[in-house]
């Protein structure tokens, strides 16, 4: 529900309540007014009757024109005039109708008369009907104009806001373009626009800096590492090295290589987090998997791992080829690395799931913690502890669901795409 509809709806709701209340009040007011008017009218009739009686007091009573006059004895006490409601037979229709009645006993020229006068009153039903009718019509007019105004506001006055919304929606951090806006006559809109322009420019420049930093850091690290590596290699070539010197040099070399791989992996992680891989294409997962497994064939033989698989044909997903390959590579090499002697690996690929399970050691670590950076279950000092983090980040990037379970000696990794 958009803003203007909400506003309109709220307004209409409040208006409805007000109109119902207003209707009730009008009803009361109109009813009171009518009643007092009727009383006034009856009173003036009563006064005219009294004048008439004073001028020519009749000997007998009479009943005419909604007036009943009857002479009464002296012992009837004087009262009135008092008003009350009564039901009287209608003269023409013969139907009982609600009427207002004036009753009094007066003494004129020594003769006491009992006077009853009555008149038709406007019934509450009628008042309610007419009040409801007028209220309803007014309400409909109001409703119509409210909707018209709402439409007008949302189309013309809120146009800058709508444009802004589209611009925000289209804003992409990788596009290096701050949000564009049109100058509006409304101060608030201009304020928002300016604010957003500043904010997005800042975001873009920060993002750019971050990107440059990650790229530079991984890049700038590699050259010094390359130099150390080269120097070590040149030293290794020397003939008069002692055994321990040799060992130290070799160890330095492998530590160096770990350092280099770590920076590369970390920068890869950052790049994935920054959504820098946008070459989305249709990928045949089955084909990619088979190609990858070929690379591992020899490794599996050397580690005496039995590989069984059930790969459906031509399963397609869309994504960046390199990223998807990295993800699958990491998953497979994880299954190989954390396997046991003469272990097993099983791969299943179906329309929207990829399951890889491998035999392994039971673990106390919560399996989902394996996705955290540098989290390792133990022994494999040589692994970086980044492989699964990278795989998870890639999965997250494409909104795939990935989870890791350990059931006794089985490590199961499920990927839903």
């Amino acid at each position, binding site marked *: 529900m958009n803003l203007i509809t909400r506003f309109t709806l709220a307004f209409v709701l409040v208006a409805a309540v007000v109109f119902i209340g207003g209707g009730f009040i009008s009803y009361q007011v109109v009813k009171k007014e009518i009643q007092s008017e009727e009383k006034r009218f009856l009173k003036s009739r009563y006064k005219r009757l009294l004048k008439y009686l004073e001028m020519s007091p009749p000997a007998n009573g009479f009943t005419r024109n909604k007036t009943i006059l009857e002479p009464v004895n002296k012992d009837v006490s004087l009262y009135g005039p008092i008003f009350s409601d009564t039901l009287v037979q209608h003269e023409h229709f013969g139907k009982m109708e609600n009427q207002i009645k004036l009753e009094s006993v007066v003494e004129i020229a020594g003769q006491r008369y009992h006077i009853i006068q009555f008149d038709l009153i406007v019934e509450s039903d009628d008042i309610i009907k007419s009040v409801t009718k007028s209220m309803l019509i007014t309400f409909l007019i109001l409703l119509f104009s409210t909707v018209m105004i709402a439409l007008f506001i949302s189309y013309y006055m809120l146009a800058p806001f709508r444009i802004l919304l589209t611009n925000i929606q289209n804003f992409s951090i990788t596009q290096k373009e701050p949000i564009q806006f049109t100058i509006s006559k409304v101060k608030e809109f201009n304020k928002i626009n300016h604010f957003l322009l500043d904010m997005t420019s800042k975001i873009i420049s920060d993002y750019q800096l971050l990107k440059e930093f990650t790229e530079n850091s*991984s890049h700038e690290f590699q050259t010094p590492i*390359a*130099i150390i590596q080269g120097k070590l*290699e*040149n030293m*290794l*070539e020397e003939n008069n090295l002692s055994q321990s010197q040799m060992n130290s040099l*070799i160890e330095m070399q492998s530590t160096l290589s770990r350092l280099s791989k770590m920076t590369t992996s970390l920068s*890869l992680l950052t790049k994935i987090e920054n959504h820098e891989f946008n070459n989305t294409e249709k990928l045949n997962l089955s084909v990619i998997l088979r190609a990858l497994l070929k690379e591992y064939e020899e490794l599996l033989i050397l580690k005496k791992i039995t590989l069984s698989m059930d790969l459906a044909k031509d399963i397609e997903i869309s994504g960046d080829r*390199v990223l998807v390959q990295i993800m699958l590579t990491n998953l497979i090499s994880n299954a190989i690395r954390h396997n046991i002697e003469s272990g097993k690996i099983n791969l299943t690929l179906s329309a929207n799931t990829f399951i890889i399970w491998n035999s392994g050691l039971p673990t106390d670590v919560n399996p989902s913690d394996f996705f955290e950076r540098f989290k390792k279950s133990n022994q494999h000092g040589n692994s970086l502890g980044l492989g699964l983090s990278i795989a998870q980040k890639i999965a997250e990037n494409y909104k795939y669901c990935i989870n890791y379970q350990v059931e006794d000696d089985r490590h199961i990794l499920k990927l839903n795409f």
Partner: protein
Amino acid sequence: MLFKVTIDSMVKNLIDNINISLIFLQSLTRYGFFIKRRFLDKLDKFKFSSKREAIFIFVKVLIVEDNAALTTIITTYLERSGFVCEQVTDLKQALEKLYGFSYDIVLLDLTLPDGDGLTLLEQLKSKWSATGVLIMSAKNALDDRLKGLDMGADDYLPKPFHMAELNSRMKAIYRRRHQKGAVNLIFKEIMIKVEAKEVEVNNIVLDLTKKEFELLRYFMVNKNRLLTKQAIAEHLWGDYMDMVDSFDFVYQHIKNLRKKIKDAGGQDYISTVYGGGYKMMES
């Protein structure tokens, strides 16, 4: 061996000197240019001479890299393999050198103080298409790698790299480009027919797996050099293997390779440098 090295360096110096005087001549006359061409042709013939064996001496390399320390290391290492290296630190100097001299291979860094190495690659491809290009870059950006190879670079080596790997790739480029590929690597009685991917020991064809072949080739192009297990593992498996047991696999492969060579009557030239790695040398 020492003697051979001395001869090598003497010949190298001699040729360098001749080269310099030729270039001097060339700058003086058109005829000088003609002489240089004739001489270079002869030199090329000498480079892959008898038995169609690949010889890697006087291969001229231009290193375009702004880090002097790295350049020195590369130069030291490559010159021991018979490459003749010249160094420049930026694009401008590289172009000056390229206009003045001819090189077999340009070793190109992508991030240079005065621009992107890819622009130089473009010019190399249009003006000096005979020159091989190996890109070495610290930028591990995958699209840079693909772009470089798409634009016609012969190979791409991400930093940091093992010198033995660089050596092996440089030789591969040189062989592909200048010796039309159909040249053999020979070490004593072992001969690798690179094109056919065959290995012969005493004219008996060995039955090697792909990895064993690759391993032997790596040893042959890096003969007399210490190859650490790590360098070998990275050469054979690239990034796939970053695990401890890869070293066991290296051991396994070397064991098999030794056995197969011995079975064919060959001698075992691969010696184990205890704690370090392996070395292929004439014992």
